[in-house]
């Protein structure tokens, strides 16, 4: 039982650590981690798999400049 609790604690610690790290990275970044912009230069993508070029995000509607994401 105590071993299972230890596993749960470790998993939660990793999750909290990772999400904190992500928050720090995104907060100090220019916002391009979350959203890429259509015609803009390619944004930095630390989580990209493979060497394929990154397309614009599919859920952007219209040509208006992108505001900061509300869920950051």
């Amino acid at each position, binding site marked *: 039982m105590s071993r299972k609790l230890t596993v749960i604690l470790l998993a939660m610690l990793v*999750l909290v650590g990772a999400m904190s790290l992500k928050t720090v990275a995104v907060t100090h970044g220019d916002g391009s981690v979350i959203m890429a912009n259509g015609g803009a230069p390619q944004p*930095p993508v*630390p989580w990209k798999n493979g060497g394929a*070029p990154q397309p614009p995000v599919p859920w952007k509607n219209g040509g208006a400049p992108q505001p900061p994401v509300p869920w950051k």
Partner: protein
Amino acid sequence: MPGPLEYGIWLICTLLEGAVVVCAVRSHSFRRYIFLNVYMGLSFLASVGRYQALSHYGIASSQYAYFYYYSDALLTIGLYFALLNLYSLVFDEMKVERYLRFGAVLLLAGTAWFSYAVVQQSSHRLFSHFAYELSQNLYFVGLVLTYALWGAIVKMRETRARLIQLVLALGVYFSAFAANYALQNLSSKATILHFVTPILGCILPAAWAYCFLRVNEETRLAPARLVAVPR
């Protein structure tokens, strides 16, 4: 549209991904490192699919974008399981497989829940946002898990050279992306950095292919403290 240099880098990266699987099969290590090979196989297929989508629809198309981000989410989950494969190999003598599986499922479920909690306010395209957010969050989870695994390897004085190199390659891969990200934020107008990101994508398949090709499963590293013992 990407230029010839970007296409060249992408092609090299795709070939290296295929080479990992071929080298693993040649060295009879495919089943032992099954999730690493599944991940590399998926990466290869995703690259081929992305090329098809890009050449048919163009970089600005929603088809390519959807394919890119959904395949990215799938690949990140694959990378997570590849990392867990390495965890189970490092801890195989401690007989904690059951707890590792439990922890892995719990962590994946926790990350999925967190990602859903972040995107649930989206009124439309919830699943696309979720896939994107999950992919991103799993990357950071993978980063933390890789450093934790490296700490465990150092602490346990692991001597299996191939295992150490596979984990180190993964650590270098994550660290290089993090460093590249930081550099791009510092100087987003530097054109050279535009090519660095795809080149970094080649690090992992190149290192793993070399590892399967050149490093034998039985090769052991002599711990420094044993080497330093006076005779």
